């Protein structure tokens, strides 16, 4: 076997896989943020809370109703999406006419409420969520053992990301969406119900966060604070990638996850901050982000 910078291949691929999994979550979350931002001009600070709620819905379904992983994969995002829809209709909607920063502040308040309430109810210790029967065990790839569930997470989230990209960039509905992002008044004049589209966009964006939460449940424990620090990294990812681009969000998310994994090997102390350092460098070189454009 070969060695890379004196690191045994087992460790190298293990860390890269871990990075790829983190990257998948970054991609799913920053994709949702980018979709919401594109349409609503709102930085959704509650995104991490929705991710956490998604995981908790899955856990509650299993613990209290005996409903397993596969159903949770459908039901939890729907529940989170519905919650998002209600919040958009009742609260966020009132803020479109004032400065966009108020949207950020509102969702920050919502994040505090959700995380505080869940912590009050369930405590800070994590709840374990079992890996589904079908995806247990690992498969030996020759150079490393790949836990099946982790492989599934990477493949499934890549599929969801590509599906979203396809829906937005290549379908008629996506075309309406992009048009409404550019000029909502004109699109409305063509007879398309933009307010409903905005609501659905927010619902869809947070549903993606809920889906990420379900995927994360068997890997990390289900914990009220699981989203609160993750989301800041995702913000940095979004700044690096540039807010405008869907594909940019996906690519940046995955590659930063990988990079973080590599850093964990080469210089573990810097693993937590490498994303922020890269953000600073990107800001100096290309302030609009790697895939972004200035607005």
């Amino acid at each position, binding site marked *: 076997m070969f060695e890379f910078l004196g690191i045994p291949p087992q460790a190298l691929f293990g860390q890269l896989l871990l990075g790829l999994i983190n990257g998948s979550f970054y991609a799913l979350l920053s994709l949702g943020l980018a979709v919401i931002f594109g349409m609503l001009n709102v*930085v959704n600070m509650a995104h991490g809370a929705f991710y956490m709620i998604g995981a908790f819905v899955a856990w509650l379904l299993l613990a209290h109703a005996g409903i397993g992983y596969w159903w949770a994969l459908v039901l939890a995002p729907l529940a989170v999406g519905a919650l998002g829809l209600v919040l958009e209709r009742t609260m966020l909607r009132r803020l479109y006419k004032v400065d966009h920063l108020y949207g950020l502040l509102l969702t920050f308040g919502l994040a*505090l409420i959700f995380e505080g309430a869940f*912590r009050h109810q369930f405590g800070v210790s994590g709840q374990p969520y079992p890996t589904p029967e079908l995806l247990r065990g690992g498969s030996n790839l020759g150079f490393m053992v790949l836990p099946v569930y982790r492989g599934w997470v990477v493949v499934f989230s890549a599929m969801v990301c590509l599906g979203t990209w396809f829906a937005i960039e290549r379908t008629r509905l996506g075309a309406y969406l992009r048009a409404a992002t550019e000029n909502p008044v004109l699109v409305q004049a063509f007879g398309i119900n933009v307010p409903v589209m905005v609501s659905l966009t927010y619902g869809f964006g947070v549903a993606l966060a809920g889906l990420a939460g379900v995927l994360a449940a068997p890997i990390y424990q289900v914990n009220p604070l699981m989203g609160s620090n993750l989301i800041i*990294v995702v*913000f940095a990812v979004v700044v690096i990638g540039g807010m405008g681009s869907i594909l940019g969000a996906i690519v940046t998310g995955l590659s930063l996850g990988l990079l973080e994994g590599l850093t964990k090997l080469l210089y573990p102390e810097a693993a937590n901050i490498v994303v922020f350092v890269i953000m600073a460098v990107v800001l100096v070189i290309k302030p609009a982000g790697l895939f972004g454009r200035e607005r």
Partner: protein
Amino acid sequence: MSTQSTVHGRSGLGTPTPAVIPGAVLWAAALLLAVLAPFALYPVFLMKVLCFALFACAFNLLIGFAGLMSFGHAAFFGGAAYVTAHAAKVWALPPEFAILAGVGTATLLGLVFGALAIRRQGIYFAMITLALSQMVFFLALQLPFTGGEDGIQGVPRGRLFGLVDLTDPLAMYYAVLALFLSGFLVIRRAVHSPFGQVLKAIRENEPRAVSLGYRTERYKLLAFVLSASLAGLAGSVKALVFQLATLTDVTWQMSGEVVLMTLLGGMGTLLGPVVGAALVVALESYLAETSLPVPVVIGAIFVFCVLLFRKGIVGEIAGILKRRA
């Protein structure tokens, strides 16, 4: 962000206003109240209010007068708290130098963060400051001198200028009051100076300010650095008051808390952040004795303010007074 910037300037600007009580009398009364307060209320509580009031005023200088929304001010507050605590405890520096070290650190951090963040505007500015401050959080978690999860505990207060024994709560209170007042006056002076006027011009319409020949980048950076050093002063003092520097001081929730204080009191008003800080600190110490979850209540107030009360308490009062006048 268009915010109100009235309240002050009623007195002393030479415009005839139908004010019932002249501003100077109000100021004197407020000062007297602050001097007498420790005899009626618990000094540590009052000192906490003053620290957070200064923190919120520093934050407000940026959002209220330059229109820059930083979501990372905890980095300066907490970073300065750590350095001051370390300087006082390990290097055994007297309090005045420990505070200087903290403020110096916050100023340097502010220079670096500010130079990066002012490259983008609006929401991006908020996200960049947030991400950079999270970097400080991880550094505080990992650097050898910060004590990880425990923080730095048992920081000695020492003797101010070798004369005043700060272990006496009353002496400490007056020292904190003096520092708060000097910070507040610096902000007041900055806001009412030509520099402050240019900041307001940038807030209202940056391209126009540029076209008038102002180098807006420099003004924004200077405002950011000033705000960061004053937030650092608040953090340094806080470290000496509680004899403690912890991870809580550098979390992004702390950055959010100072936003709430400012929003609740009134963005862009001089006194708003003080009122907001007093209310939030009082509320938190009240909630700590009940079984209600603090973050939920704080979050609910946040949502309420953003939806229905965007001018804040002082902003609303100023609006009413203005309509009467």
